[in-house]
């Protein structure tokens, strides 16, 4: 295992606060929410595991006991669907075999919410985001109560507002709150200048 301090990017003499801050920043960066459906999700998960282990090791070393790492287990927990073909399609998508998954879907006669959701997932994995969103929207329309479909669509609709931004890049000129804050700090009367 790598040196836990170099994993977190801090020196061994860093204070508990600094370690915690570094850990939090990294955990935010590689949080599973930022890699939902992402073909690189497994790499992010590995990183997350490495960071958690490093933080655990350091806190154990320092306190000689309990640790308080980020331990929320994350699995791509798909809802179990009744149709065995859909389960096979999901497994194929998870294994990265998109062509076979698409072929299986193609051979099915009926098209319901699940069908559109899985087509959307295949398109998303390919990077065909426009088609992915159309399919997700269709799935939500056919089955408005399914949280999985709604979440997939919501992730796509949040666009540039979601996801991780490194320090100092959070206001790319489009975040109204930050812009307002900057303006009110720059002007002597404390109000908006624009």
């Amino acid at each position, binding site marked *: 295992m790598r040196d836990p301090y170099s994993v977190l990017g801090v020196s061994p003499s860093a204070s508990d606060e600094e370690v915690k801050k570094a850990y939090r920043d990294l955990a935010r960066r590689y949080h599973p929410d930022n890699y939902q459906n992402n073909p690189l999700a497994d790499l992010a998960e590995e990183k997350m595991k490495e960071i958690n282990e490093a933080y655990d090791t350091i806190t154990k070393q320092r306190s000689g006991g309990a640790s308080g790492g980020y331990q929320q287990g994350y699995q791509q927990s798909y809802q179990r669907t009744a149709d065995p073909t859909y389960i096979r399609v999901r497994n194929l998508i998870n294994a990265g075999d998109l062509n076979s998954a698409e072929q299986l879907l193609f051979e099915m006669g009926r098209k319901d919410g699940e069908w559109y959701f899985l087509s959307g997932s295949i398109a998303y994995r390919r990077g065909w985001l426009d088609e992915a969103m159309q399919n997700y929207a269709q799935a939500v329309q056919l089955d408005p109560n399914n949280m999985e479909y709604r979440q997939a669509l919501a992730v*796509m609709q949040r*666009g540039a507002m979601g996801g991780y931004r490194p320090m100092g890049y959070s206001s*790319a000129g489009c975040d109204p709150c930050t812009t307002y804050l900057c303006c009110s700090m720059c002007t002597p009367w404390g109000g908006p200048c624009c």
Partner: protein
Amino acid sequence: MFGYVRPFQPELKCKDLSLYQATYCGLCRCLRRRYGLIAPLFLNYDFTFLALLLWEPEASFVPCRGRCHAGLLRKEPMCPDSPALDQAADQSVILAWWKLRDSVRDEGFWRGIPARILSWLMGPARRKAARRRPAFDRTVQSCLEELSALEGEGCPSLDRTADTFARLLQSAAPQEGARGRILSQLLYHLGRWIYLADARDDLEEDRLAGRYNPVAARYGPAGDDRALRLTMDQSLELIGAALQLGDFGCRLPVLENIIYLGLPRVEEAVFDGSWKEIKKQKIRRNDR
């Protein structure tokens, strides 16, 4: 390519600007050394980004001083030759040449003359580059052929047309291992984003000329800026997510600047029509 991939200079630290400039100048020198005096014509910001991305993460930034191609009396700090610069130089020659062939075919006899002359002059350079990167040469050719076939049949799918250019750019990096996967996702979505930005930029011009435009084919002749921006922003998200997973050493701050500030700003400009102005701006230090 098109120059869409550029840093946002006001937010770039001095040392990162020096790194960026030395990479740019280094790429210019690399083009000149490998492909002769007219090859630096193909120098652009997009391939400077590619060189920064492909650089070995453990290599630190040690510039040397070299003579500038544009003003031979001036000496500038430049990155010395490296595999990443060589690769970016080879690939920019290949892509530029195939784009020239494309415009020769699209422009008709008289208006195609400059492109024909230039592509004739660059023929030997491209053959040399193709010998060095045969796989990339083949992919560029086949992707551009696919693209013009889709354009010819008026393909209504935004993703299918963008996919051809995205795959083209994706093939610029090696695909093996975890790093390969990261780079290939990053470049795929960068290619997609560039293609869509270019299509939006050409929307008005294509409409007047009665040409095919993928944005018009998908959303109607006026386009749909909200929907298009959303899908472009999603690609930017995935580019950022991929960048965070990779190891880019001392080049990370420049890459972050380009991805989190440069690209969104260019996108903004393409949509509000100020891109032509920004395109002309040079990325350089003011003290020279």
